[in-house]
């Protein structure tokens, strides 16, 4: 199950896919442990971070990693470790919000299409085809051009771009589930279509959907970071990771690696960890049936 990002931001090499599929139990535990640590760090950022993420110190620009600044400082002398830890909040909440939006819309659309079939299904298939065919990043940039840049707009735009992907996946899962006689049994009992979908069908699809959503979380994080990198998402002085990479560019030109590498590595590690966990969770839940 490879998630396709609407912005095309993520292309997964065979190597990573092999790790996801074949990596031993260790890969799952290391990944989930890492993710728990990142989430905890984000939750308790003020406690965990050694310094104020916005404390400017022009006397200490682009300092290398050392005792005072474990991961060095950026172009304004701000502590990189503190910024990356605080940035985890925005970098994780953004994808979460866009996935909530996209799954509410996508699961509703996909379930409705599979349940009603006929013209509803055809209509939704056409709508998702158009949304699919339209380049995701272009769509998002268009929305931002109309409504202005900022994290909220970026999240809503990306949420809409992710919706057809979730709708398509949900539809295929729902079609398979609807063909099982237990759904017929509920109809024979006199349960209404709406109640069957909400109370029985969607909960029965939840394991498959959840695994897919965890993988998509990585894609969402990547896409949001891309937008921030391009200047459409988070705005300074935020320490959202994509924005940090963008700010680190000037350092890269001067031959200073750390300001771009630290947030870049954070993005890469979190995305890979979500992929590993997502695929494993989906496999495990599916095999339990």
């Amino acid at each position, binding site marked *: 199950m490879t998630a396709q990002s609407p912005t095309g931001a993520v292309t997964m090499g065979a190597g990573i896919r092999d790790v996801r599929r074949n990596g031993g139990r260790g890969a799952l535990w290391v990944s989930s442990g890492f993710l728990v640590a990142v989430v905890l760090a984000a939750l308790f950022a003020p406690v965990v971070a050694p310094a104020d993420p916005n404390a400017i110190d022009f006397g200490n620009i682009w300092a290398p990693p050392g005792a005072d600044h474990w991961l060095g400082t950026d172009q304004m002398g701000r502590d990189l470790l503190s910024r990356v830890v605080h940035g985890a909040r925005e970098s994780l909440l953004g994808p979460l919000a866009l996935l909530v939006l996209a799954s509410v819309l996508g699961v509703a659309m996909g379930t409705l299409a599979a349940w009603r079939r006929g013209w509803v299904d055809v209509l939704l298939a056409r709508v998702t085809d158009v949304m699919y065919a339209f380049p995701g990043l272009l769509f998002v940039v268009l929305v931002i051009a109309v409504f202005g840049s900022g994290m909220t707009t970026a999240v809503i735009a990306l949420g809409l771009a992710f919706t057809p992907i979730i709708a398509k996946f949900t539809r295929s899962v729902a079609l398979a589930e609807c063909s*099982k*006689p*237990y759904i*017929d*049994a*509920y*109809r*024979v*009992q*006199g*349960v*209404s279509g709406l109640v069957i979908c909400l109370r*029985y069908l969607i*909960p*029965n699809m939840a394991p498959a959907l959840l695994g897919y959503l965890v993988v998509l979380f990585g894609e969402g994080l990547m896409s949001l970071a891309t937008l921030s990198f391009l200047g459409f998402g988070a705005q300074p002085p935020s320490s959202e990771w994509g924005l940090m990479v963008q700010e680190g560019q000037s350092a890269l030109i001067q031959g200073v690696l750390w300001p771009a590498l630290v947030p870049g590595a954070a993005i890469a590690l979190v995305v890979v960890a979500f992929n590993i966990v997502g695929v494993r969770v989906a496999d495990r839940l599916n095999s339990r*049936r």
Partner: protein
Amino acid sequence: MNRNEAALSVSGLRRAFPMGRGVPDLVAVDDVSFELAPGGSLGVVGESGSGKSTVARMLVGLERPDSGEIRVAGRTRGVRERGRAARLRRAREIQLVFQNPLESLDRRLTAAQCLHHVLRLHGAERAEADRRALELLEQVGLGAREAEARPHRLSGGQRQRLAIARALAAGPSVLVLDEAVSALDVSVQAQILRLLARIREESGVSLVFVSHDLAVVGQVTDEVLVMYRGRAVEHGPTRRVLREPEHPYTRMLASSVPGPGWDPAEVVRLRAEFAATAQA
């Protein structure tokens, strides 16, 4: 209710499936009529593709008849009925037990929850539903241990017992069993058939037993309807139809049941004979 009124009365039932452009429709069920007395038991037999499952699905409303009428206790079942009250009334008229018990049960619900949901839907209070659920489980021979189990932890026979209890939970006047024991091994089959006979005696529910298996139908039904290619070719008391079949197709079906003095060569001869008459 009129005492002489049939529990279930079906007349002129027809259903055709479109097979695509230029291909004639497949007539799955063609002009099928029968009546079932209150507390009666009717077998619908035939080979695969004879249309018997389509009859079962039309009875419970999963498939819509092209024409014909289905009446339960004198009331015509509408083709399209909307609204909660109509839906629940339909459910209380006819219930269905499916062939594959594992697939027809929700894997997320325990046996007790499964029954609880149906009882609540049909108007029972929470405490009443809990009590009735245990009663129903006991009625089909499942205990407190099975009550807390999800379908995958139950055996095939236990699952079908649960499916029967679930169908009974709505309090139907007619119970349709679509190949309900076909997936079970013979000793379990016999237990389920005894259970059905007992339930019919105790609750007075009428049974429609759809099966390809004449031996099974012979054990639990008073009357039998033989279907061939969508049509009812023979209809009469089970005992008579199985002993002295009139229609060549029924003769062939009856001779196909393995038993003492069973002669496979005779089956082949009868099938050839029947094929000849069917073509004429």
